[in-house]
C-alpha cells in the first residue's frame, strides 16, 4: 500500500471524532511533547501520544529496565531487562508509528537541563517518581508558560493534576504545596508497592488531558486534583483556591528561582565515579531486604568499605550510631531514598548520597554505561 494512503487510514477513526478531525491531526503533527520518566505512567502516556500522531516526542529516563517494572511498564518485554529504558521504548514506539520524531534522552532531568528541555516542548507530561522532579518540572512549566500534566501513584491510588500555564490566570500546585514534600516521606513504589493496571489508567488519563490541551478542546483542571482509589472506583475532584501570595500570581518569564537552585545546591550527592575513597568508608544500604542481592555488598567490601543495613522505612525510628570521624555513603535502588536520608543527617555527620543508586552502579560495573 502507498505510504500516503497507509498514513491516512492509520488516523482514520480519530479523524472522524468531533473536535479532532484533519485540523486537529495537523495541530498534533506540529506539536512537541516532553515526557519525563518512562515508567508506569510514561509508558501508557507515550504509547497513546505516539499513536495519536503527536509529531515529536522527547522522553527522558536515566534508568534501565528491571524485572519488577514489567507488570506496569507496558512498553517493555522480558528480553529488555538490563537495557536502557528510553532506547527500548524508542524501538517499540517507532514500530507503532513511523511518521513521527522520537527523541530518547537517557538522562535525569535536573536543575541544569530542565529549562532547555521544557522550552523545546509545547506541553510537558510528568511521569517521574519523586517530588523533587515533579516540583522542578511544575515550576519550570510555570516559568516557561507551558501546559503541564502530572500524575502520581500509590498502591491502588492515583492523583492527577493539570495546569495550563499558557493562560495568565493565577493558580498552580505551589498554591497548595508552598514547600515540596521531602522525597521518600510517603514511601516509594519499591517499598509500598503499586498496582500495574492503575498506572495504565492514570497514564491514559494524562494522555487524554494532554490531547485535550493540545487540541484546544478544554482547559486544564487548574486548582484541583483528580484522585481515584481503585478499591473504591468513584473518582473525586478536590479543589483549592489560588494563593494571591504565590509566585504564579506574578505570571510567567521569571526564572530567578532556577538560578538560585543551581547556585546553592550543596554537594550532597555524587555518581560513583566522583565518590572519593574517603566517602566510601561506611556504606549504608537503605533498601528493603527483598531488594538486596547478596553479591551487591561485595562491590563495596572489595574496596574496603563496611556495609550497614538501615532500611529507609524505619529510618526515622532507628538510625546507625553516628561517628563524626567517619564518612557515610548512603545508597538505595535509584538514589531517591538516599538523597532524602542524607538531608536528615545530624549536622556534624558527613554523608553523601550515591546518585542513580545501585542501579547505576551496577550498570557501571557491568560495563553498560
Amino acid at each position, binding site marked *: 500500500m502507498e505510504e500516503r494512503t497507509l498514513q491516512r487510514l492509520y488516523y482514520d477513526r480519530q479523524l472522524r471524532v468531533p473536535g479532532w478531525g484533519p485540523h486537529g491531526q495537523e495541530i498534533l503533527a506540529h506539536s512537541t511533547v516532553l515526557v519525563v520518566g518512562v515508567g508506569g505512567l510514561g509508558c501508557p502516556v507515550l504509547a497513546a501520544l505516539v499513536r495519536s500522531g503527536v509529531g515529536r516526542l522527547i522522553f527522558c529516563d536515566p534508568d534501565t529496565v528491571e524485572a519488577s517494572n514489567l507488570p506496569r511498564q507496558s512498553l517493555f518485554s522480558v528480553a529488555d531487562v538490563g537495557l536502557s529504558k528510553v532506547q527500548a521504548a524508542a524501538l517499540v514506539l517507532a514500530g507503532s508509528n513511523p511518521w513521527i520524531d522520537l527523541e530518547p534522552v537517557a538522562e535525569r532531568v535536573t536543575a541544569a537541563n530542565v529549562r532547555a528541555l521544557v522550552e523545546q516542548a509545547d506541553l510537558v507530561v510528568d511521569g517521574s517518581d519523586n517530588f523533587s522532579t515533579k516540583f522542578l518540572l511544575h515550576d519550570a512549566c510555570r516559568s516557561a508558560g507551558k501546559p503541564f500534566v502530572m500524575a502520581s501513584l500509590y498502591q491502588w491510588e492515583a492523583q492527577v493534576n493539570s495546569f495550563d500555564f499558557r493562560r495568565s490566570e493565577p493558580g498552580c500546585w505551589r498554591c497548595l504545596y508552598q514547600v515540596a514534600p521531602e522525597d521518600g516521606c*510517603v514511601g516509594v513504589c519499591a517499598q509500598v508497592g503499586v498496582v500495574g493496571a492503575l498506572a495504565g489508567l492514570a497514564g491514559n488519563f494524562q494522555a487524554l488531558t494532554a490531547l485535550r490541551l493540545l487540541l484546544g478542546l478544554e482547559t486544564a483542571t487548574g486548582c484541583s486534583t483528580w484522585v481515584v482509589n481503585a478499591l473504591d472506583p468513584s473518582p473525586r475532584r478536590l479543589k483549592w483556591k489560588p494563593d494571591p501570595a504565590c509566585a504564579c500570581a506574578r505570571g510567567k518569564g521569571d526564572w530567578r528561582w532556577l538560578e538560585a537552585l543551581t547556585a546553592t545546591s550543596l554537594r550532597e550527592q555524587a555518581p560513583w565515579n566522583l565518590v572519593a575513597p574517603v566517602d566510601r568508608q561506611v556504606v549504608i544500604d537503605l533498601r528493603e531486604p527483598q531488594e538486596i542481592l547478596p553479591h551487591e555488598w561485595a562491590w563495596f567490601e572489595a574496596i574496603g568499605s563496611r556495609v550497614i543495613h538501615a532500611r529507609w522505612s524505619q529510618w526515622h525510628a532507628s538510625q546507625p550510631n553516628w561517628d563524626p570521624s567517619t564518612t557515610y555513603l548512603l545508597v538505595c535502588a535509584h538514589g531517591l531514598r538516599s538523597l532524602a536520608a542524607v538531608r536528615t543527617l545530624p549536622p556534624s555527620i558527613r554523608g553523601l548520597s550515591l546518585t542513580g543508586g545501585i542501579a547505576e552502579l551496577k550498570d557501571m560495573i557491568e560495563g553498560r554505561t
Partner: protein
Amino acid sequence: MGGLLVTLKVRYFGQLQNEAGCSGETLETQATNVAELWRELAARHGFTLEAKLIKAAQDDEFCDWEAPLASAEVVFMPPVAGG
C-alpha cells in the same frame, strides 16, 4: 475540645488508609475544627505521617487546619509520588 457531639464521615487516602485499616469511617466527635479532628484520629489510629504533609478537604475543597468543621465529610490526603 469541648464542642457539641457531631456525627461526620471521614475519608482517608494513601498511607492513612493503610494505617486506619479502612478507606473511611463515620464517627462522633467533639472536635470543632480540622486540626482537633486530626489529632483525635491520629491518636486513635497511630498515624505516623506528620500533619504538615497532610491536606484536609471539606465539601471537596482543601481547607486550613484551623477551619471549623462545617461539612458532613472531611477528607485527609497525603501527597503521593510514585510513577
